[in-house]
């Protein structure tokens, strides 16, 4: 009998699985949640981005030190020309902070104890924000009491100048807090802020409040007003263009006219026999009340009768801007006269009869 020398068995027993079922190996993708990026990973990406930026600048023959994000976008568009319609699908090179979604680092230490005292509420940043806000409210009230004690309390104090700003929307707040909140939570937060604003001495916390407000852009300032030219008689006229579906048109609006309209050299009645189209043309002039004042010379091509009428209407409204004041321009914008209609014919898809219509469903 051979003596088998058995050495002391190591503590870890090497077991070999004989048969494996694939079910155990398959990952439960749903339970894993969104992909988690570690801070080291993000840092590495940032370093790579910076190095890559310098390489890119080198390739393009520019100075790596003064290479801005716009230069990067330009260079990428040049090096990787893409014909894709979706701008988001095109190749892009941006700072990792803008690409990778903001994620929270591990909220607990090696011993498993969470760092934040409100961790077990589930929405720690939201509740901590609520606590901070309420802190500020108490601060203001304490300030008021102190002033009252000194006898310097007065109700007519300077209010926080809100101007044309709005509260953060729920999505923006979620972005700041890096966690999802419900509509109810958001409303409570806004109510608390409003309550804070209603206190007389809220001016002391102005900086805190303004962090949660965004400026509203006045839409009408973005409108380009066409230049008013003068012809040799001194009569003002403006030329504009308009588009709707596949129609293109250009309109020359002349002042000191009699309400005469000519389209492609033809009379209005001859070109637009349908009342609806003529009403479309009349709408901008009737809205501002300048019906008999202008002469219109229009030329239009493409599309059908309705889209030609819509294009002409847009062009006439734009041409009128030069003759109007700011307030009237705002009125026109709100009436929808200055908005180009983005609706275009939807393409037909394969497997369907039209853009939306499916083939007749037959049970058998």
């Amino acid at each position, binding site marked *: 009998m051979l003596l088998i020398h058995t050495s002391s068995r190591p503590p870890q027993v090497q077991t070999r699985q004989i048969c494996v079922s694939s079910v155990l190996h398959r990952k439960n993708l749903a339970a894993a949640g969104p992909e988690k990026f570690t801070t080291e990973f993000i840092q590495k990406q940032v370093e790579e981005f910076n190095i890559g930026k310098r390489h890119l600048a080198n390739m393009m023959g520019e100075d790596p030190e003064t290479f801005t994000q716009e230069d990067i976008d330009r260079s990428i568009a040049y090096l990787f020309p893409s014909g894709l319609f979706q701008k988001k699908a095109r190749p892009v090179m941006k700072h990792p902070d803008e690409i990778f979604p903001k994620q929270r680092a591990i909220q607990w230490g090696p011993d498993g104890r969470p760092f934040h005292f409100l961790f077990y509420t589930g929405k720690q940043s939201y509740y901590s924000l609520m606590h901070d806000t309420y802190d500020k409210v108490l601060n203001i009230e304490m300030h008021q009491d102190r002033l009252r004690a000194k006898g310097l309390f007065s109700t007519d104090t300077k209010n926080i100048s809100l101007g044309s700003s709005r509260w953060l929307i729920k999505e923006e707040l979620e972005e700041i807090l890096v966690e999802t909140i419900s509509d109810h939570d958001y409303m409570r937060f806004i109510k608390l802020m409003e309550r804070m604003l209603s206190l007389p001495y809220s001016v002391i916390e102005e900086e805190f409040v303004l962090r949660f407000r965004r400026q509203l852009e006045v839409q009408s300032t973005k409108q380009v007003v066409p230049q008013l030219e003068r012809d040799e008689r001194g009569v003002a006229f403006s030329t504009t263009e308009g588009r709707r579906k596949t129609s293109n048109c250009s309109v020359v609006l002349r002042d000191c006219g009699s*309400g005469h*309209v000519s389209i492609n050299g033809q009379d*209005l*009645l001859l070109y637009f026999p349908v*009342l609806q189209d003529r*009403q479309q043309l009349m709408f901008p002039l009737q809205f501002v009340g300048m*019906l*008999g004042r202008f002469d219109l010379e229009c030329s239009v091509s493409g599309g059908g009768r309705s889209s030609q009428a819509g294009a002409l209407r847009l062009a006439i409204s734009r041409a009128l801007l030069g003759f109007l004041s700011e307030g009237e321009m705002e009125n026109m914008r709100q009436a929808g006269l200055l908005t180009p209609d983005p609706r275009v014919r939807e393409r037909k898809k394969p497997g369907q009869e039209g853009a939306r219509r499916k083939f*007749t469903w037959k049970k058998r």
Partner: protein
Amino acid sequence: MRRATSCDAAAAAAFFLITPGGVNFRHNRNRRYANRRRRKKMYLNWVKLWNLKTQVTNVRPLHVNGYQQQQQEALAVELESSHETLPIFRTQESDPARHLEKHIGQYYTLPPEHIRTLFPHGLPRRFQTQVKTFNEGCVMVRQPALEVISSLKKVDYSKPAPRFVLYGVKGSGKTMALCHTAHFCSTQGWLVLHIPDAHKWVKNCKELLQSSYNASRFDQPLQASTWLRNFRTTNEHFLSKIKTSQRYIWTKRESTEEGKPLRELVDQGISRVKSSSDVVGAVMKELRLRSGHPEAGFRLAVVVDGVNALWGRSTIKKEDRSFVNPEELTLVYNLRKMMRNDWCGGAIVTTLAQTGSLYSPKTAYLPQELLGKEGFDNMDPFIPVSVSNYSEKEFESCYLYYQDRHWLQHPQSKTEDGKKELIFLSERNPSILERLCASL
């Protein structure tokens, strides 16, 4: 017809499920939509007429609120004042011979008996409905009609008949000017030969007979007999005075002797429909011959609407499915002979019409374009009279007339802005304006 209810929709749906495949029932749906539109139109018209009735005839409504009372009082005041002074857009002159330049833009009333006798078929369809609605036939005095009338007053009737051609864009008032002229002619005691629409003779012919007189030509008995009936209504008093100049043989057994009154000829045509087209030709020939005589005692006015149909194309088909040439139609042939100015003692007043014409482009309105080379050569020389859209004064007059008749119910239409809108949308075209106001 009962209203479409939800059970209809359910029944229709059930029907769809039963029938296999995707059978298209769109025609049912379209018919339902058309019915709904028609009923809505009828209802709206009824509402309008009801409003007119309660206001114009001063019937006391069942319940009067403050606004209605005010309206009625205003109307009463207006009616009183209108008895004393005529509104600016009306004129007292109902005799077209006395219409002058100063009456341009004003409405004159056609006496009801004149409408019945003179215009059994001559007025435009929409004007006839307007006459029925407003209970009066008011025609506006306009420049083109006055031109023709003044020319007719000065014409030397021993010379060949002058030809007038009224032309203009669609809806500018050519037919109305023609009717004004016809009214003038009849009040002056002329014999008016009024062909309401020559286009009706070259299209939609239900019966086409081969002519017995000339084998290469075709007869249209229905159109000819209707026209003869209307002709008889218009010119009752002339028919007994004029005598035939020759013997006409219609069939082996029927004939009209020489020297018989024209009435017999016309009655022959109406009763024996088969020979009515030839009767029309005979009547025209007689009138041509008679009007030339100085002792005839009457003048002949040939008033034709849509004269470009005579030299255009037709949509009537022969048995071998080829199109009939207009000159192969008896009626058209005879009318062409009438258009020749080889007779005297009268005048020819015509209109060009693109609306009913066949195979002519929509933009054509000038005589050259609509008559074509052949028609122009035949009509040459003629006096062209252009009919344009309303001027500012005429538009104002029309607007006031509609206001007076309470035709414009929309509150916005009573304002200045509303008037500007009307001007823009209709470009002062009479027919477009009328259609626009009908829906307000």
